[in-house]
């Protein structure tokens, strides 16, 4: 093994010169506790940065708060185990994190582990390989592990890839194809640019194609803020006129008095945030000041903040008081297809709010216990699923509301598919982000005029995509070169 020593900048023999790898080692999907394993020379460093504490005593379960190393936000509180090498499964330094099994927690912890410079996700069988290499493994175990890997990895990867929405897998495959072509053109330029008659526009074509790919990739990654939602929670803002029951709604949801609830209009002047888990997904509710015209300076500031918050949230819950709704008779009698839309836009414009097209607005009829049953029934029939009917104080309709809301949140977090597929998608997203970062480097290096260094970044970018769609072989690159260029003597 070789290491680059700082002084002489050359390789010499030093043991343990390896990257640090991590993986979710408990079963995929939602479970009570999830176990994440880390192995390699950087483990102690990773552990200390995650827990912001010195290393726990070896082989003893210790309770620690786990932080994201860069954002320093709290990810979870869980059991941490530290196995200094060689007395560990792999023979290297190993740590285990036992965290809550919710998808959001697992995902954000994996994300945190991936954010270190020298860590990477373990390849299938890699823990086993390392443990074998360090003489830790009874080889009769290898086969059992192989079966496990077979069941869990390759098959799974293929399956996940196959099961991806058709458009998505086509998109990945198409990106790979374009990147492959760009790389092939660069390789042709490097290996044959001097001897052969290459099309003089080769480099321009590479630049154009990488640029358009890069832009698409960035747009895709920014799309719907899905990654951010998974980390920080889906932002839901509760808005409405004063005293329609916004705070009561939040309290009913939280099942604890998180916000001050009182019958006096204008009580909630600042924003009250409450974060919790909805079907495994992180959600942040913001209760805001009731919206009305007023001369009260403090209240106006509250209203301004409420409006601003609503405009940056993923979902706006517009709460109305069913018992005090002037438009109610008109709504019941009206024949337009989606009568609630006019109500929503009317209210929002009254509040002076402008929302973007990817923001969702749901209408929530509160205090339905005060409505005559006929009126309620006819409302239910007329209004589609993005309208909810509850009575916060009487606990009516809350279950249906929460179920409906969970579906919406799932959707916002990247599709209504099962958790496992979501985890896969999260990995895909990480690979795509790395790919995009590589392309950023590509442009910098290309400006520095060393086309070989720039090409290296394209190779690496291609590898990132290859982790989703399957490997890229040199032969494929050569295939493109010889298909598209006339190379010969």
């Amino acid at each position, binding site marked *: 093994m070789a290491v680059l020593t700082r002084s002489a900048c050359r390789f010499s023999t030093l043991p343990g010169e390896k990257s640090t790898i991590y993986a979710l080692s408990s079963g995929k999907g939602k479970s009570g506790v999830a176990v994440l394993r880390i192995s390699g020379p950087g483990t102690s460093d990773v552990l200390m940065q995650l827990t912001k504490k010195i290393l726990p005593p070896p082989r003893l379960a210790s309770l620690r708060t786990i932080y994201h190393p860069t954002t320093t936000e709290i990810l979870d509180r869980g059991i941490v185990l530290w196995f200094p090498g060689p007395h560990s499964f792999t023979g290297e330094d190993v740590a285990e994190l036992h965290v809550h099994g919710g998808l959001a927690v697992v995902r954000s912890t994996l994300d945190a582990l991936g954010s270190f410079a020298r860590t990477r996700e373990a390849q299938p069988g890699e823990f086993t390989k390392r443990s074998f290499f360090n003489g830790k493994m009874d080889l009769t175990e*290898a086969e059992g592990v192989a079966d496990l890997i077979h069941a869990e990895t390759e098959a799974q990867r293929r399956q996940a890839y196959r099961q991806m929405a058709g458009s998505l897998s086509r998109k990945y495959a198409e990106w790979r194809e374009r990147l492959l072509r760009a790389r092939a053109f660069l390789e042709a330029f490097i290996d044959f640019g001097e001897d052969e008659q290459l099309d003089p526009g080769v480099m321009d074509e590479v630049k154009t194609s990488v640029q358009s790919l890069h832009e698409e990739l960035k747009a895709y990654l920014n799309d719907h803020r899905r990654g951010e939602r998974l980390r920080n929670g889906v932002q839901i803002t509760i808005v409405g006129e004063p005293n329609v029951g916004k705070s009561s709604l939040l309290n009913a949801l939280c099942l604890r008095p998180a916000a001050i609830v009182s019958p006096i209009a204008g009580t909630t002047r600042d924003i009250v945030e409450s974060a919790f888990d909805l079907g495994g997904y992180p959600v942040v509710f913001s209760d805001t000041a009731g919206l009305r015209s007023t001369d009260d300076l403090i209240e106006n500031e509250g209203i301004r903040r409420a409006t601003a918050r609503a405009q940056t949230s993923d979902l706006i819950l517009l709460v109305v008081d069913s018992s005090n709704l002037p438009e109610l008779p008109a709504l019941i009698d009206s024949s337009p297809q989606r009568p609630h839309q006019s109500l929503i836009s009317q209210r929002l414009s009254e509040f002076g709010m402008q929302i973007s097209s990817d923001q969702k607005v749901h209408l929530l009829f509160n205090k339905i216990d005060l409505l005559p049953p006929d009126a309620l029934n006819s409302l239910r029939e007329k209004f589609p699923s993005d309208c909810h009917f509850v009575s916060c104080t009487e606990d009516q309709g809350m279950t249906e509301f929460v179920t409906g809301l969970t579906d919406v949140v799932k959707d916002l977090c990247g599709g209504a598919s099962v958790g496992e597929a979501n985890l896969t998608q999260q990995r895909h997203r990480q690979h795509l982000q790395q790919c995009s970062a590589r392309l950023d480097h590509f442009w910098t290096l290309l400006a520095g005029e060393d086309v070989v260094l720039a090409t290296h970044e394209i190779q690496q970018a291609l590898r990132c995509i290859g982790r989703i769609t399957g490997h890229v072989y040199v032969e494929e690159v050569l295939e493109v070169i010889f298909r598209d260029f006339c190379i*010969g003597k």
Partner: protein
Amino acid sequence: MLRHCVRELHSPKKSWTRGTPVRVWYTLRTLRLFASTSISSPVGEHFDVIVIGGGHAGTEAACASSRMGCRTLLLTHKLETIGEMSCNPSFGGIGKGHLMKEIDALDGVCGRICDVSGVQYKVLNRGKGPAVWGYRAQIDRKLYKQNLQKEIFSYPNLTVRAAAVDDLLTKPGSTDNPATVCGGVVTSDGTTYHSKSVVLTAGTFLRAEINIGLEITPAGRIGDGPAVALAETIERAGFAMGRLRTGTPPRLDKRTIDFTKTSVWPGDDPPLAFSFMNERPWLKAEEQMPCHLSSIQGKEVVKIVKDTLHLNRHVKEELTGPRFCPSLESKSLRFGHLAHRIWLEPEGFDSDVIYPNGLSMTMPVEYQMKLLRLVPGLENVEIFRSGYGVFYDFIDPRELKPTLETRRMPNLFFAGQINGTTGYEEAAAQGIIAGINGAAKALSKPPITINRTEGYIGVLIDDLITNGASEPYRMFTARAEYRLTLRPDNADMRLTEKGVTVGCVGQARQDRFRKMKRDLERATELLSSVKLTGSAWKERLHAGSVNISSEEAKTAYKVLNHPDVSIKQLTSALREDIPELYDLAQQPWLADRLKIQATYSAIVKEQRFEISEMRQDESLGLPDDMDYDLVNLNLSDEIRGKLKSTRPSTLAAASRIEGITPDALVRLLRYVRKTPRHVTEAVAFV
């Protein structure tokens, strides 16, 4: 061939009566025909290593084996064709130049000979970063042959004889290793030579046929006969063989070319040497000969090609042929609309021959003339010899171990074009490895293997033995995963130490290498010892425009990483503080290498994890006789088939076979043995 059998039949009992069963040698041929009765007696000379073939693979193999201290015999059809450059009059190029630097790092001969035989030296890809610089030279054919022969005929430990080898001496294996073992050769006149190892470098001569138009002549090269008996011998031993085709262009008469219609391409100033042993090649910049560039394009070309298709056996069969090195015919058919570059390359100082690189063709001669005269500058050209195609047998290189020894017949090594490669440099690279390992085997020493993280030679051999060759294999830089680390400038730092360990590096080179290494390391150390803030650097370097961030303190080595900072600038700025560095950097080679090394240091650092992990996998060896049918391995039929045909020598090699799954690799783990960590010795990789 019947002759040997009869001869051997006459003295069958001798070795029995003398009671020396160990020394019972069969020839392959007798083995088949008279297996139960024929036993030959061991007469003839003994050598440690026999090399068959005097081409670029054979000469490197023979010299390497001799340097290792083995009594070596080189057998070739004709002494006067030793060192013949059968095709283009040039050595090196992009990827190929890398191979030459590596051969030189192992103390090989071709780089040094090129340094005293060139007519023009030019580094290709100057504008694309030093990792892909292609050292290349136009070579005087006559001089190359002369210089190489002079070297070969006086090489210590090396005997050279002219003879055609027809047969191999073999011996049945022992009970614990049942494979038939090779132990020498029999030449066409019946002479027997014994040796501990045999290196076969038959090039394109195995059952070779030359093809012009529809005409086919059995010949290895114009004027040289093919090796038919030897091909049959190899086939009989059970080696998987295939057929490849290649071609060469017509040779033009310089006096009939109008060079004013072409553009002139001069050599480099100053010209750079291939060998780490030489500061510069033998020529001064102004003594070099130019090359000329023309091109060919148009409907007329395509028309001639199409009109002669029915007269062109080679091209008709080439449709599935090589994607590179194609004939002009294939290029025109596939890319008719494009212009094709034609390089007019001189063949030597006193030669009237011009080699038109890019015009390989096999159509009947009269049409070749027609076509040539369409090229600007060649309107009145006359030719010395027409272009032709060659068909030849090659051996499936998946039969080989990474040492280039055959798995089927211990002590027999294959190297060069016989393994399905094309090009002098690819051949020489295999030659030196096979020569070293043939000798190592004879000396019972551990062999040398180079893996993909260590050199292009490793990439070449690994590609061949893992994937085989479906077309002639040519080196490109795109094939090397660690291109930024495997640079021409650091080939010595990557390989020479390894060569010293195995014993193939002579004293003179060892001394020079150690001195260069010491200087390089010292200079690097000195550069890393100075640390200043960005603004201090700007002031020192008088480089206000240079974009060095002001706040962060940086070492001189880091600053050198900057494209606008030269080593001269930097060492001058530090002259008073570190006079030693200034003095060291007065050596041009050192200055160049420091700059390159600094440029790539960041990325090399980034790759080092990947490389060390790959090396670890490379040290997990799979036994040669691994039984993939073992029930408890539990491999699928598909994977078993792939592993059986390739027989990867390491777990890393297995993982590179397409379609091998992670779980299959883990299943293989239990049969893996850890090979000695020779791949991981201290190698300065800068």
